[in-house]
């Protein structure tokens, strides 16, 4: 069917509105990060910077600089925390999801897991804080890894289960008939087929952990464990607030998950549709 000129125009207009709506703030963030400080404080606002200033990026990547040290240690902590929590969540979620999907593990248990993420985090803060405090685990990366892994698990199990459900069960039966153990079947038959789902689950888990702010704010208090969201807040809470610095930290903090998403793009697209289309 051919579209008329008017229809085409409408379609492109809608696409443009959507693009401005979603990409606009990010674009403004990038512009802010390279604007002169005076451009950002003037009234009315200068949308287009009078001069490009990349000095903030240089400072953020310089360990000797104060803000550079804060940013780089937060980046390290974030990668360790989100990466570690995602790895643990996946290692536990895959066998768990398989037992829910194929071994008739009780659905009540799965719903109980899911119920835990329905509680607002604030309800957990106090008991968790006193528990970690008595164990001497406050302000440690490992603490956040534990908390995030627990937070990610229910969702990861659920997502993996939905994806394993749609895999053809005969293939696994064939492997069992051929004498393969469950572990062998899982490793050699199920995992290769579920790879897109695993990539999608890993990606989403990593993003959730990467963006988490509340637990990180409460459980960490210095450079040794603070993650990026908390560090960004710290930049904003200084005596003299330089919007440009906050913007450049924001841009830099977006890069790792963005790179990850691009690298896994092929997997994620097929992983997200795997549940809807059979085969």
């Amino acid at each position, binding site marked *: 069917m051919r579209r008329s000129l008017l229809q085409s125009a409408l379609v492109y207009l809608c696409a443009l509105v959507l693009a401005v709506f979603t990409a606009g703030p990010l674009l403004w963030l990038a512009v802010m990060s390279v604007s002169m400080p005076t451009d950002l404080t003037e009234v009315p606002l200068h949308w287009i910077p009078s001069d490009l200033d990349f000095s903030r990026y240089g400072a953020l990547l310089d360990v000797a600089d104060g803000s550079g040290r804060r940013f780089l240690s937060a980046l390290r902590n974030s990668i360790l925390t989100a990466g570690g929590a995602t790895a643990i969540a996946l290692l536990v979620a895959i066998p768990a999801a398989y037992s829910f999907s194929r071994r008739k593990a009780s659905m009540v248990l799965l719903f109980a897991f899911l119920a835990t993420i329905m509680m607002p985090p604030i309800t957990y803060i106090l008991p968790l804080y006193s528990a970690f405090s008595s164990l001497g685990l406050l302000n440690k990366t490992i603490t956040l890894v534990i908390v995030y892994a627990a937070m990610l698990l229910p969702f990861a199990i659920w997502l993996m289960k939905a994806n394993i459900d749609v895999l053809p069960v005969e293939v696994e*039966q064939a*492997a069992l*008939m*051929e004498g393969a153990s469950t572990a*062998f079947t899982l490793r050699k038959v199920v995992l*290769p087929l579920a790879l897109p789902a695993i990539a999608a689950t890993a990606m989403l888990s990593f993003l959730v952990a990467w963006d988490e702010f509340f637990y990180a704010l409460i459980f960490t208090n210095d450079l040794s464990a603070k993650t990026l969201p908390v560090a960004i807040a710290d930049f904003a809470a200084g005596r003299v607030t330089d919007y440009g610095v906050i913007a450049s930290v924001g841009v830099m903090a977006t890069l790792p998950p963005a790179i990850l998403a691009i690298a896994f793009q092929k997997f994620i697209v097929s992983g997200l549709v795997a549940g809807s289309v059979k085969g």
Partner: protein
Amino acid sequence: MPENPILCIDKLQKTYGDAPILKDIAISMDPGEFLVLVGPSGCGKSTLLNCISGLTDISSGSITIAGRDRTHAEPADRDIAMVFQSYALFPNMSVERNIGFGLEVRKVPEPEKKSKVADVAKLLKIEHLLQRKPAELSGGQRQRVAMGRALVRDPELFLFDEPLSNLDAKLRVSMRTEIKRIHQTTGASIVYVTHDQIEAMTLATRIVVMKDGVIQQIGTPNEIYNRPVNAFVADFMGAPSMNLMKGTATRQADGIRLEIPAPQGSTIELTDHDTDPDRLPAGPAEVLIGLRPEAMTDRARADGRSVQVADCVLDVVEPAGADTYAVVHLGGTEAIVRLSADAPVAAGQMTPIAFDLSRISYFDVSSGTRL
């Protein structure tokens, strides 16, 4: 009961909740037999196969494979191999690894594995496909790979679950021949599930006809075809199926006199000299008279002493190349008669039809059981 059955199923029951799926199944199978489970969909034949494979637990009864009780054994411990309807190949592995999967699991040394896979590939004529992935194969080639995976381990028992139903009609016939050839060359013991009665007739050494979770009859294709135990088996097996005509049978000194109502109040009268009259109830009785289409033919093809001729009106004439089929209204049913291809017949014509009464079957009208 054979002396050393390869498979012995006794008093097997399977229920889902309150619904009985399989009722009192008893089968004994000799080594080297090709046993075909056949029946309409929902008759429980696939469930029975899954019970034998161990993929489904049974509710009661026992399963013995090669002399060992396997009632509650894991599928892997039953020394069986299965060919699935959907092929169930491992899409991430090459054909070679697919076939060798069972050997890989058992940690068979690489050279031995390679030579066994090569032997099976040669038997199935897929040597040139070993390095391909299943996605790069046609349906028939995938089917061969699935069979190769089963054959390579040389198990006690092979299970086939409707292996040809995903293939197109032409390929189905050639793969059917292929399966038969493999059975002949390897002498394997095979349990084969199908809903296609022609597959059952051509492949089986013995057929198990099932309906509603109950075994109707176990017998050689010849027994099933010529001496069906009830009207269901008579109707289900054979294409076109057996004509089941309502008629009256009266015992006489020289045989059984049959009266079959024909259109316009007329009646066809025949006398059966071959059947022992004692099998039928005394006095005139209404029975179902079963005759295969090839036992109702034009005179040119009929011979022998049991053949009697009666005139019938042909309602519809259907030439089918090698034969011409015609529909005749007899005994309250549309009976099919099988005429020679060049028979000079036309619809609406009164034609002499020869009834071969040596091949007659009688069934009870209400229960359908063979008399």
